């Protein structure tokens, strides 16, 4: 039976706790807090209630009839995380973590954000719980994601622009960790993906696994059987692991799709598992985009949410074991897929999710009519409108 992480926080060879000593007591405390909460029916009830009445769960599993006809092979279902409150799956995790923060008694929340989706989801639950919230965001991303910056501010969060390094998600994460090191007694760090030191990759996975658990019972009701293939995009990897995790003990095929940016043969991509090598960043050992000297490379993707040179350690382990196949699609392929879903299904996807959809081009011809493919539609496209509007291949008057 699949039973990772082990006691030391490792998924096979990957994971661990590569952090300054200052954080060790906080990480041990967090692990204990989480293990207690997991067994506490009061906590579980509160978590489920908020997922339902606040985040809008369960999200539907929609049959994509016209997209299925377009490819003419297996049946395509979409897990509709785009319908979650705040517009993406990120809220599943922030609800779980804010309830832990409440139990810890800490009054101040810290978060990092790239595209701003995790920042918005954190600012949202912090407002709901009446806690102070500080979000670190790269200066470069602040310019790219103006709408989300405004949303976070309206929700009462303080946005701290990060001007070090590449001024994107990796630097925002470093800065959030520095804040945590400096204010560890008073602040609770809500990490946004299945990355960072143990126990974060496990906690975030567990909170996101509601996606796969729901999808599994929904497809059983709709089709009376298990799906044949699962498909999700991978940046840090939280929506993918959320869908995959409840299915890991089956033999169902799984594909994680990374961002190939301008192409795998250029330096402008974010395909960590495809092109990276194992290394240590932000507290865990995992695949990492790096140069020969072990300096971390700057990732590129048209989707700010996939623009990260690292990846969750559990994905590294699933890649090495071969349980999940990791592929990648380019910026252009993702844009085409976003356009296709919009006109075929009346759903404008987030650019991140469009990467998973783009892989259908390669996957569907290999399926038969008996196959059922479940795609995680991790978020909606509202936040990406400025990007879509700037692209010539997207329909619409400008």
């Amino acid at each position: 039976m699949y039973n990772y992480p082990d006691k030391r926080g490792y998924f096979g060879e990957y994971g661990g706790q590569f952090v300054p000593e200052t954080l060790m007591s906080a990480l041990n405390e967090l692990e204990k807090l989480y293990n207690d909460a997991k067994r506490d029916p009061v906590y579980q009830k509160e978590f489920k209630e908020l997922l339902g009445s606040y985040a809008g769960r369960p999200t539907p599993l929609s049959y994509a009839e016209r997209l299925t006809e377009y490819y003419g092979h297996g049946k395509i279902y979409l897990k509709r995380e785009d319908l979650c409150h705040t517009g993406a799956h990120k809220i599943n995790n922030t609800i779980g973590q804010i309830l832990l923060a409440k139990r810890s008694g800490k009054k101040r929340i810290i978060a990092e954000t790239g595209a701003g989706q995790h920042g918005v989801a954190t600012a949202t639950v912090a407002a709901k719980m009446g806690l102070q919230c500080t979000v670190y965001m790269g200066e470069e991303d602040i310019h790219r994601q103006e709408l989300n910056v405004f949303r976070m501010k309206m929700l009462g969060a303080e946005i701290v622009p990060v001007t070090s390094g590449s001024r994107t998600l990796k630097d925002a994460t470093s800065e959030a960790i520095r804040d945590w090191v400096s204010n560890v007694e008073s602040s609770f760090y809500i990490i946004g993906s299945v990355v960072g030191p143990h126990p974060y990759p496990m906690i975030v996975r567990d909170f996101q696994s509601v996606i796969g658990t729901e999808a599994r019972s929904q497809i059983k009701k709709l089709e009376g059987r298990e799906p044949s293939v699962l498909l999700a995009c991978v940046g840090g990897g939280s929506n993918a692991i959320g869908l995959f995790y409840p299915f890991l003990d089956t033999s169902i095929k799984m594909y994680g799709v990374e961002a190939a940016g301008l192409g795998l043969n250029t330096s402008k991509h974010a395909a960590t598992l495809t092109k990276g090598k194992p290394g240590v960043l932000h507290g865990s050992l995992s695949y990492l985009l790096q140069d020969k000297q072990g300096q971390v490379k700057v990732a590129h993707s048209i989707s700010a949410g996939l623009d990260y040179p690292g990846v969750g350690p559990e994905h590294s382990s699933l890649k090495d074991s071969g349980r999940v196949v990791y592929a990648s699609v380019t910026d252009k392929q993702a844009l085409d897929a976003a356009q296709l879903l919009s006109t075929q299904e009346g759903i404008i996807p987030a650019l991140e999710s469009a990467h998973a959809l783009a892989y259908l081009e390669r996957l569907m011809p290999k399926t038969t009519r008996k196959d059922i493919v479940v795609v995680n539609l991790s978020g909606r496209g509202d936040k990406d409108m400025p990007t879509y509007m700037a692209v010539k291949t997207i329909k619409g008057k400008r």
Partner: protein
Amino acid sequence: MNRIQRTMIRCKVEKEKALACFLTAGYPTPEELLPLVCAIEKGGADIIELGMPFSDPMADGPVIQLSSQIALQQGVTLEWILSQVRLIRQRSEIPIVLMGYLNPIIAYGAEKFFNDSSLAGVDGIILPELPLEEQGRYADLISANRLANILLVTPTTSTKRIVLIDKGSSGFLYCVSTAGVTGSPKSKIDTNYIKKVKTTAKKNPVLVGFGIKSAEDAKRAVLNADGVIVGSALIELIGKGKSLAAIEVFVRRIKNGMQKR
């Protein structure tokens, strides 16, 4: 016995407080590293700590972040740093400690790196990303190459853990003065905490670092410790373009200020 132990014993015998000075290797330029080491040694430093720059230094404040970025832009690598250590060793026996992040070491090959470091004349290693829980095979490689494995304790470390960390540490015990990153501005040295570390750590001499900015800070820190480590304050002076003579004076003021008259 390596150079760090010899130095710490000498300090103890002569009732002298020890001073370790941190330089980001290759900042402000690679050419300036050797003259800076010379000036600091002349100023009375007992140990040189060379920071190996990393692209994402999460335990460092803005001063060392920026110095690391500038060093990397000028092509600083681990190979180059070891070549500089060999040059220093041609004329000086001052203990040299390398401090840095794990990933460049993994990329170099950990086994080869610790071996090459030892051959070049390095005496100790500080890896702030390696808490007790991750020491494992790295600790073995470090000690197999007769390098001191200098571990850190912080204000959030429990007394029980201080004992364990002291046991695992060699050369000296790095007592981080505040919960924070290097060069933390808000630091007011907590003498009670340092006293707790000093009375708990029976094996190693205790050196206090992070946020030691002046001779006054240093004096306060060594009330209950064996010495201090000065980093960001020194890098800041270097960044302001101060002369080697001025750097030497700064180091001497800290070293002398700590000693009982």
